[in-house]
């Protein structure tokens, strides 16, 4: 699965090793390898685990469901400083939004990567897209 970063696609196999929230809360594994959460997760439940978690991946079931953006902002507001990934149906046009909301990277599947290759993502990677923030 390609992971999109500011410098392009990275291919990693760690992506299968993500722990589910239930598994972590029931002590069923080490979250150091990463945690995957749904976009309706209450981030307050995660606060005690922030230090132990190596990566949080927020799933995007559909690109038009924008809850993940607010969840990312909340996780950052609650003090999460680790790696934050948007995973699933995120389209290249949303990359700057994901970054501005606190995500570090985006994980997409092969089909989407074939349709929206690396250069599409790189083309928008540095866009701020927000006049007020640019001015501030």
């Amino acid at each position: 699965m390609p992971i999109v970063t500011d410098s392009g696609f990275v291919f990693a196999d760690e992506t299968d090793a993500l722990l589910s929230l239930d598994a972590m809360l029931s002590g069923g594994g080490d979250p150091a390898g990463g945690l995957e959460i749904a976009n309706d997760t209450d981030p307050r439940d995660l606060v005690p685990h922030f230090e132990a978690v190596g990566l949080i991946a927020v799933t995007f079931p559909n690109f038009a469901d924008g809850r993940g953006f607010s969840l990312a902002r909340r996780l950052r507001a609650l003090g999460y400083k680790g790696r934050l990934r948007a995973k699933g149906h995120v389209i290249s046009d949303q990359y700057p939004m994901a970054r501005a909301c606190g995500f570090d990277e985006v994980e997409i599947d092969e089909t989407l990567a074939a349709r929206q290759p690396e250069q599409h993502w790189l083309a928008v990677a540095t866009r701020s897209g927000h006049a007020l923030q640019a001015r501030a």
Partner: protein
Amino acid sequence: MYRYDEFDDRFVRERVASFRSQVERRLSGALTEDEFKPLRLQNGLYLQLHAYMLRVAIPYGTLNSPQMLQLAMIAERWDKGYGHFTTRQNIQFNWPKLQDVPAILEALADVGMHAIQTSGNCIRNVTADHFAGAAADEIEDPRPTAEILRQWSSGHPEFAFLPRKFKIAVTGSPNDRAVTKAHDIGLRMVRNAAGEPGYEVIVGGGLGRTPMIGKVIREFLPKADLLAYLESVLRVYNLYGRRDNKYKARIKILVHESKLETIRAEVEAEFERLMAEEAGPTRALSAAEVARIEAYFAPPAFDDLPDSDAGLEAALAADQDFRAWVKTNIVAHRQSGYRIVTVSIKPIGKAPGDASADQMRALADIAERYSLGELRVSHEQNIVLPHVRAADLPEVFACLQKADLATANIGLITDIIACPGMDYCALATARSIPVAQDIANHFNSPALAAEIGKLQIKISGCINACGHHHVGHIGILGLEKGGIESYQITLGGDATETTAIGERAGPGFAYDEVVPAVRRLVDAYLALRTDANETFLQTYRRLGAAPFKAALYPADIGGSGSGAGGGWPKAKAGPSLSASAQVQQAAHSQYVFYHF
């Protein structure tokens, strides 16, 4: 007026480039139609019945002469020579081609305009009082706030994929001309006990399928906290708003289902977190930033003038048409010697809100010469010239007459709000423009319209209520019943600070039954009012719906014109037969009296 600085300019140019690339990627297949659709919507581009439609933002309804000229140019070069001013203070072009849209957006950017977020599930173009900066009753100018919100919401990375659209309106006057209680968020500029400026925040209003009047979520919000507070509301909505059913996805349903108290607590908690954040994207608005924006809206250089003018008085005495126009289309200005002119975009029998490129150019020219270069679009689909010298009114009237824009009907029965309806809109269930045209043609006698006085008819072509039918004194909603158009009438709606949702009168009417039905209502009102000073709405409030329903559904008419209506529900007798008969009698005499 606000002028784009380098940041705004760079932002809109970047958006044009993005959209150009999105169109290319849609054509190449990199973007599916499902993916492209929200992106084009967020750039104002719809696909309607016959063609694409581009909705251009006119932030808080304010534009200058060069901008109006550019709209005329766009209408002629890329569309079919006209545009449609909407109830959200925007303008729509009905026939652009997909490949031309990037060029149109570029042309808009050239004059400091855009089409960003005029559609889609995002924060829409912010609306405000169209008399802002000119109204005699204004406490504070709402435009700096609206401009701050435009900049904050445009391209906001967190709120581009909300459960549903989100509309914000701002008013700075006690007389609410911005319908703030029918918006997702309404802001009323107020002062607290200490005299500090701030906002009353209203949340969860809206029309559409489930009309609701907004509720006060924060009685006083200090000015500096505006963005952090709105960001909190939006975040709570984005996370908890329903996404399982688009008819239940607006914030009004969240507020209704979760209770205002719960939402208020969530918002306040989020707000506290945001304010505690060290360097999040939202900081408290700095006084310097507010001052920078406010400076753009400093009052223009008005001349020191006496309030009355001899030439004006002479023209009033000499010209009856002019007198009628001044009576309906002019209101007081805060500055002595000036007036606010509302130009009716409702010539009798024409599509409400449609203006030709020539008319747009005429308006731009008149504004340049007589209104300090400024124009406004009202949510009633008219154009406002905010700063006209009283002495110039006769000349302005003459210029407007030449452009077929001098109809003297503001606030009257022929000043009808109508959404595009089935003649253009892909979501429509029935037509609305021809209904408006028929009603206006029927009441085309200026004397009769003047006799009837203040009466707002508002027509929507489907339950989405873009024509604000719920808040019309007479509201008309076009639906489909058994394969034909059926029009439901609501009564007693009110769009002002005394907002009220109209009451459904009864069974629907076939297309050609609508004008007679409105006629019966008007006749009933004329017969029932205490005197000519009592408006339709006042009479309705004094007597309630019963006599009006009786007039709408008289026993012996029993679904007039239902021959065309096939399986139309037969109109029922009104609640009181004798009242009904009485009204009919009175209505009849009125009819004879006015013979037209």
